[in-house]
């Protein structure tokens, strides 16, 4: 895309603007990213590898994968269901529902953890009943999962709703006139059309689920080897002044972020669309 001279700036102005923007992005994107890796290797390869092989680290990785493995499919199911509901049907309260789906974006992760403590914590609404039946939610896996689900709730739905809205319902209606039932319509007509958007939503949801800190930190109890997810493990190491180990574990999460970004770029390349989504 080339622009005519009347719609662009003179070369010095352009250079100044590019220079400032690049400087800002370097300071706020490239420098932090470099810092993660440099700090991780400050004490050499051995310390780096040892920090990842430590049992607490491995447990934290397992727990993180498990929590994301439960919460991401749940929110994917919800995202597809909610997107189907608000884009294929007109009903009263539709726009209210759309705003409610966005609600968790406006809620602090700490509050997202707090609400579960208030419900299921030792002094919470159901705390007494849970203790009597020996069910642990807070300071245990279920708490971590529900806190993660709360925080990552809107991601898939947010990605699918605008996409399915632009695609309209013509193809689904055509399938209906051809005799297809709901199952056929979803799997054979709708899903192939939204698969990239869905994949992108799931990726974002997963990245956020694995990296969630605030909400999980409130409900986890920081029990090493039991309820520490990887981000919490990073915090523990950092607070114990084991900086290299903390950054070594942080590189895993940074990798996750980079992979998510690359896949995102690849998906955009495939579909030829850039996502307008915000999170």
């Amino acid at each position, binding site marked *: 895309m080339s622009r005519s001279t009347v719609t662009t700036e003179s070369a010095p102005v352009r250079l100044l603007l590019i220079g400032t923007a690049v400087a800002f992005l370097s300071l706020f994107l490239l420098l932090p990213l470099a810092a993660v890796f440099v700090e991780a290797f400050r004490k050499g390869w051995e310390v780096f590898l040892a920090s990842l092989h430590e049992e607490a680290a491995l447990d934290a990785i397992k727990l993180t994968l498990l929590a994301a493995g439960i919460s991401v499919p749940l929110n994917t199911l919800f995202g597809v269901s909610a997107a189907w509901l608000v884009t294929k049907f007109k009903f009263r309260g539709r726009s209210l529902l759309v705003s409610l789906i966005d609600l968790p974006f406006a809620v602090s992760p700490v509050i997202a953890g707090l609400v579960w403590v208030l419900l299921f914590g030792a002094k919470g609404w159901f705390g007494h009943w849970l203790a009597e039946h020996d069910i642990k939610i807070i300071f245990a896996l279920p708490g971590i999962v529900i806190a993660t689900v709360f925080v990552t709730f809107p991601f898939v739905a947010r990605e699918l709703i605008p996409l399915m809205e632009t695609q309209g319902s*013509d*193809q689904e*209606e*055509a*399938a*209906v*006139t*051809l*005799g*297809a*039932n709901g199952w*056929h319509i979803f799997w*054979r*007509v709708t899903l*192939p*059309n939204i698969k990239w958007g869905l994949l992108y939503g799931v990726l974002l949801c997963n990245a956020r689920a694995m990296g969630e800190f605030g909400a999980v930190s409130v409900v986890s109890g920081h029990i090493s080897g039991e309820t520490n997810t990887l981000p919490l493990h990073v915090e523990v190491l950092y607070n114990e002044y084991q900086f290299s180990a903390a950054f070594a574990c942080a590189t895993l999460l940074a990798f996750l972020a980079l992979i998510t970004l690359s896949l995102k770029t690849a998906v955009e390349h495939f579909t030829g669309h850039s996502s307008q989504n915000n999170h």
Partner: protein
Amino acid sequence: MSISIQSISKSFGAYAALEDISLEVPDGSLTALVGPSGSGKTTLLRIVAGLDFADPGPGKIAFHGEDVIDIPAAKRGVGFVFQHYALFRHMSVAQNIAFGLSVLPGAARPKKTEIRDRVKELLKLVKLEGLDLRRPHELSGGQRQRVALARALAIRPKVLLLDEPFGALDAQVRKDLRRWLRVFHDEIGLTTLFVTHDQEEALELSDQVVVMRNARIEQVGKPQTVYDHPRSPFVYEFLGNVNKLHAGKDVRYVRPHEIDVLFAAEFDPATDSLARVHHLFSAGPIATLTVKLGDGQFLDIELSRRHLAELSLSVGDEVAVRPPPFERGQS
């Protein structure tokens, strides 16, 4: 199979999209629903297909006498061609056409080979042999439309419904496809109802024209009848160019080709009016003449180019114009 529509109404909130519509579509006919946008024609078509629902009430829709209003769209057996075709983008042409057969429940579903043969047959019918592996985005607009048609026909529908079938096509393709569809319809003889906003298309293509306006049917009839004997000023104006002649409180509608032009010397005060040539346009098969009458009204006249040459007129000349004899029923 005939379609019988009886007292169908449809409202969206306070807005009435259809008011008490009744219509008979004869078996094997090609019927056009024509009207300006917002007249309710697409809504009516969608209700016949089961894609929209009429307001509850005494309304009935019957195919060959069988009431279908409670039959869901998926089981109603209509072939529906959408305005923008609604082809499945991720499927090949063959997969698109086969879709309706492949989603039939187990027992009713034909064997793979049967489906393949049927797809072949349909591709031949719509003259798209050899394109079975293409994706919709690799086809031209006219080809897409024929794929949509083949897909709709694959389920052996009882009736065929087309929503603005030529709306998304270029002018030339549109003309060719229009002629092709007429021949195609005569070959397969399937009762067909189509929506268009283009009066020329409706008149040229159909056996029966249904003119709609403001949620109501304005007139139904054969194209010739509706064109020559419009029942209302609206139909008169909608179905082609027309001159609106004011004489006191009365208005008379005269089509441009119905007016004779004579030399001023041939002026007959009983039937003619004197007028002055205001504008001449003859770059086309038909020449158009605009004349200004004595009372200041303008009149468009269409005549053959040969006739115009015989008159050898130029702007400013005086002529005598003779409208057709007054017909009853007009006002």
